[in-house]
């Protein structure tokens, strides 16, 4: 894990910090189901495990570049500068939430911080990100769009149609496939023809004659280097690339789906809960990107133990504040509901 060109020590520490912040935020979301049952409604999906991919990719950003992921969307805006208070308040359905309580966990949006919004319908966000890249191209803004989606989403027609159109129009976009081996409760071996044949999912890029690369999604520096190349390609008007980043998510797909008043909660990861593969999940935990990156930064003396601890404590305090802020925020007034239908 060599220090990559263009990544200063400060930047590496920034990356570690962002990873820790995401993890802490997600763990607070998850704990809410236990500590404040009933506060989070609907379906909530966490990004723990994805930190190296999210941060490694977004570390290559220039100022105005946009990030456009799927409904599993908590990690990205944290890196882009969205206040966690507002995010947590949104997830709790509060008035002070990022979207005033209209969107919830699956639909965070913060256009001011380069995060135009998300869709909960698999694959459709890929078309939206491709459209954002059209805007960048038509307006000649020099922006690159970072489009994130799951392995499952690559089974949707929307994925294929978008990549072909993006390639034909040479749009400034990087398609980042987060292969966490599962779509909800289904292992990728049950639904992906490439995987079944022993091929990487990045092979799908062949269908569009664009670069397709697979990278270890638990290593932020490898992700950084790989995405960097794709971003350069996109920014120099050569068109999109497909990057497959492989990692395990570390929580279940989402909270268990129940009908009120049965309370929602987080089950165990599907590897264990559904397939009984304890060893698979243990290996994933062992491969957790955060302790790995921490150890490497310590080893390279980029980070001291004290720095690391301070970063972790700061993140804890920040997210504790977010939780308290969100809990204190009132629910929206019901008659607000008729707002925002039309512009």
């Amino acid at each position, binding site marked *: 894990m060599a220090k990559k060109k263009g990544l200063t020590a400060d930047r590496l520490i920034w990356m570690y910090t962002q990873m820790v912040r995401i993890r802490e935020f997600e763990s607070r979301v998850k704990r809410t189901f236990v500590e404040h049952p009933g506060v989070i409604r609907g379906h909530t999906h966490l990004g723990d495990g994805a930190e190296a991919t999210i941060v490694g990719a977004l570390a290559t950003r220039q100022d105005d570049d946009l990030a456009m992921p799927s409904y599993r969307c908590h990690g990205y805006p944290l890196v882009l500068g969205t206040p966690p208070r507002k995010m947590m308040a949104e997830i709790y359905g509060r008035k002070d939430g990022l979207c005033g309580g209209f969107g919830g966990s699956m639909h965070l949006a913060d256009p001011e911080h380069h995060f135009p919004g998300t869709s909960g*319908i698999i694959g459709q966000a890929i078309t939206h990100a491709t459209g954002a890249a059209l805007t960048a191209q038509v307006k000649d803004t020099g922006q690159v769009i970072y489009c994130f989606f799951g392995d499952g989403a690559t089974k949707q027609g929307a994925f294929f149609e978008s990549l072909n159109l993006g390639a034909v129009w040479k749009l400034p976009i990087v398609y980042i496939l987060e292969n966490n081996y599962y779509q909800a409760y289904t292992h990728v071996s049950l639904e992906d023809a490439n995987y079944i044949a022993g091929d990487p999912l990045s092979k799908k890029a062949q269908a569009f004659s664009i670069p397709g690369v697979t990278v270890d999604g638990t290593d932020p520096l490898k992700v950084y280097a790989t995405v960097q190349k794709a971003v350069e390609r996109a920014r120099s008007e050569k068109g999109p690339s497909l990057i497959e980043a492989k990692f395990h998510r570390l929580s279940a797909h989402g909270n268990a789906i129940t009908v*009120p008043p049965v309370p929602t909660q987080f089950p165990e990861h599907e590897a264990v809960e559904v397939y009984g593969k304890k060893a698979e999940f243990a290996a994933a935990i062992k491969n957790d990107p955060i302790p790995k990156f921490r150890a490497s930064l310590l080893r390279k003396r980029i980070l001291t133990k004290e720095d690391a601890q301070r970063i972790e404590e700061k993140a804890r305090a920040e997210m504790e504040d977010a939780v308290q802020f969100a809990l204190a925020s009132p629910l929206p007034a*019901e008659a607000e509901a008729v707002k925002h239908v039309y512009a």
Partner: protein
Amino acid sequence: MAREMMYGEAIAAAIAEEMERDSNVVFYGQNLAMTERDPFLRRFGKKRVRIAPISETAEMGVAVGAAITGLRPIVELWMSEFMLVAFDELINEAPRLRYMSGGQVKVPLVFKAGYGFAAGWAGQHSNCVYHAMMGIPGLKIALPSTAADAKGLMAAAIRDDNPVVYLHHYMLTLDKGPVPEGEHLVPFGVADVKREGSDVTIVATGWMVKKSLAAAELLAKEGISAEVVDPRTLTPLDVGTILKSVKKTGRLVLVDQGTRHASAAAIIAAEIAEHRGNALKAPVKMVTALDTSIPFSEPLENYVLPNEEKIVAAVKSVLAQQLAAV
């Protein structure tokens, strides 16, 4: 012989019984039968019970192709809104192939999906889309409101030689009710009077039947007798039973979880308007969702959806009105 069963269980029971009866019935969808422990898989084998990729267009289109060549597929689509990515198959393929072939093929399949999950699922997972399927010749639509209907309509849907959209309501999943054991078929196009009454007719489907019955209870306490009619299938629609009730009561309140213009309520109101419009004692009244997407936060969500109070208020308003002067 009836047994207490949950609505969700009753659906599964119907599928299992029909798969037992007819080896042409196959069952597939996303996130089901993941492991060999799956009870359907164990019982019917991996040819007939399959996990499908997240590919609604292929899933639904494959069902159409399988149906015209001799299978009777049931596709588990989970949330009815997911069908929108493949709506062509529902609107423009499954119901049209028979007609376009001049009656040479038939398309027996069931698209099964839940809907109306009013529990914080927000703007894209809890709307109602059945209105968009109404009036599509060749298609049938079932919306059970009780465990018994859930079983009987699913069995009838599987046996039907036409494409059927079977929409079960998520909020009813755990609701219990008596369900006939063994063969139990609820015929399509036959509305059910869920409660008899004489002052006003309330028409509702799915979860709204439950809400309407609760409203009728409240009204009864005030001496108002409401009849609650559940069409059970939107296509075919049993206008006759509703008309009969309206002839008796002279007043009609239509309850629908969808928005005003995207509701079965409006379609039924139109039918009644044409068949009996100016003979009502008061104009019909629709109780629907407000014209918004479904918001995430609980008070917002509650505010936009129909509920007992809104139904009670609507009933009172139609009772308050006299025959308007011409």
